[in-house]
């Protein structure tokens, strides 16, 4: 066995380029594509939003995706190992990303568990005539904001099922677990969501919703906030900047056309967002017409769209159960393929650092994640904890580490020419000075604007009016904790078997 084959066998690898692309699409296409993009587009200029959205995709999203691919593919390791190989002192960036992924995984699983439960609720429309009351009362049993230990069995059981499935998938490895999940479930997701869209656009009033979504408000293009929303949407949607694409790229054969694959992933992700926008707003148009109100009175995003607006819509629409099963089933699949990519960042890092077996690392990461997830999110306060952690980890975790890593790689290490040369060696798209400018200047500048804008808003007004102790501990505290973890974890030494200098395949066999 050659050293390259040996390394591949040890770390795992995607069986082909197609599987890698499907896994990357599965990671990028998540809950945000379905419940965030349609509302962001509607709120920020409607059809005119297409212009800043495309500019953001082509000038920041896809170029940043190439950067992640270049780091992982060039340095053949998890996020911490890749950064350590890039320059030993930047390893903390990788562990910072790992900590962010761990936190995201523990709450993301809870939303998938809710969607799983709602897939079955859809069949008999269990929410009755009051979906909001059902969600917060009967289902989540949420009281006043705070942290409690009162377990909600109706959430605990599906959450345990989700984690059980994740543990099995992760233990099976990159090829048989993550790869096969994507290979089979991404086509299922596209077909299921496609059927949902066809059903939605054939509902009475669908054109009212589509008109609301696509009617352009050209004056919005003069507002900086609209451009910031476009860059934010592209950034959060593409799974870039927090270790996932670095990890996945490290599992890809050395001779692959990574920029070509990146274009496919970027356009597939945005193409799915457009499909989601059409489906969601066609359905909202039906609902608005049925209730005799304007679309803006029913339009929503996030948890409200999925678990309040859609159930109400399912109750009113002909064949509503079908819409419900397709909608919540799509959320489960989109969420699951994203969740495995998030937890893979952590497992891959633990394997690389401690030279553990696949099953050992999956359990070492997955079992604690399951316990934390069940303890925090299967209780009556789970929804509040989730809302706060999600907001702060997105803004001051993902966004901050992305800006920091871009600035460090582009300006601190001046590594872009070397990374571009690596991608150019086998890529179908030449990366030169324009790419350096986009990744080194434009993308960090725009993302910094989004970050500062969010920071000022959070300082002015406490997020969603939660008690300050909750925001300080679960919000700012979590955002600070992931940085501290990153710095501390980077102080641990690498084992002698793991080379930090090239050739990476020539690992020392000590056993």
């Amino acid at each position, binding site marked *: 066995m050659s050293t390259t084959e040996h390394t591949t066998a040890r770390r795992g690898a995607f069986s*082909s380029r197609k599987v890698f692309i499907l896994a990357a699409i599965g990671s990028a296409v998540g809950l945000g594509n379905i419940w965030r993009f349609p509302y962001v587009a509607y709120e920020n200029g*409607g059809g005119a939003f297409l212009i800043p959205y*495309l500019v953001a995709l082509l000038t920041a999203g896809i170029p940043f995706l190439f950067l992640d691919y270049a780091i992982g593919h060039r340095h053949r390791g998890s996020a911490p190992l890749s950064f350590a190989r890039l320059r030993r002192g930047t390893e903390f960036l990788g562990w910072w990303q790992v900590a962010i992924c761990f936190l995201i995984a523990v709450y993301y699983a809870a939303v998938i568990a809710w969607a799983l439960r709602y897939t079955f609720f859809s069949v008999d429309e269990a929410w009755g005539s009051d979906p909001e009351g059902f969600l917060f009362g009967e289902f989540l049993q949420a009281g006043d904001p705070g942290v409690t230990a009162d377990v909600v069995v109706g959430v605990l059981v599906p959450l345990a099922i989700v984690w059980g499935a994740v543990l099995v998938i992760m233990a099976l490895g990159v090829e048989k677990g993550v790869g096969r999940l994507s290979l089979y479930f991404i086509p299922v997701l596209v077909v299921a969501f496609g059927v949902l869209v066809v059903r939605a656009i054939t509902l009475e009033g669908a054109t009212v919703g589509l*008109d609301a979504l696509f009617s*352009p408000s050209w004056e919005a293009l003069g507002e900086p906030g609209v451009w910031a929303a476009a860059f934010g949407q592209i950034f959060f949607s593409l799974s870039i900047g927090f270790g996932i694409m670095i990890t996945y790229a490290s599992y890809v054969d050395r001779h692959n056309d990574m920029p*070509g694959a990146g274009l496919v992933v970027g356009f597939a992700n*945005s193409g799915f967002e*457009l499909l989601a926008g059409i489906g969601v707003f066609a359905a909202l148009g039906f609902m608005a017409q049925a209730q005799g109100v304007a679309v803006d009175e029913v339009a929503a995003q996030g948890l409200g769209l999925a678990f309040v607006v859609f159930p109400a819509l399912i109750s009113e629409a002909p064949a509503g159960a079908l819409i419900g099963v397709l909608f919540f089933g799509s959320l489960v699949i989109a969420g699951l393929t994203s969740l495995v990519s998030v937890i893979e960042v952590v497992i891959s890092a633990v394997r690389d650092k401690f030279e553990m077996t696949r099953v050992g690392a999956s359990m070492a990461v997955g079992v604690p994640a399951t316990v934390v997830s069940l303890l925090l999110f299967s209780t009556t306060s789970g929804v509040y904890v989730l809302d706060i952690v999600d907001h702060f980890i997105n803004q001051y975790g993902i966004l901050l580490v992305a800006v920091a890593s871009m600035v460090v790689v582009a300006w601190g290490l001046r590594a872009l020419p070397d990374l571009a040369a690596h991608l150019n060696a086998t890529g179908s798209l030449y990366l030169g000075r324009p790419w350096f400018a986009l990744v080194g200047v434009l993308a960090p500048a725009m993302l910094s604007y989004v970050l500062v804008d969010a920071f000022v808003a959070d300082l002015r007004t406490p997020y969603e009016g939660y008690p300050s102790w909750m925001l300080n501990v679960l919000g700012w505290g979590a955002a600070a904790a992931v940085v501290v973890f990153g710095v501390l974890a980077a102080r641990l030494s690498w084992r002698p078997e793991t080379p930090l200098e090239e050739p990476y395949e020539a690992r020392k066999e000590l056993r």
Partner: protein
Amino acid sequence: MSLDAVILMLVAMAILWGGLVVAVIRLNRHDLPSLDDIHRDL
């Protein structure tokens, strides 16, 4: 639907879905999957 909305919806479809098709064709032209790849996937 207004004419503006219809046009923008079609433009969005053409750019994003058309872009995806072009990206896939471009990738395959540059580097066709090998028989080994296909066998492994199956």
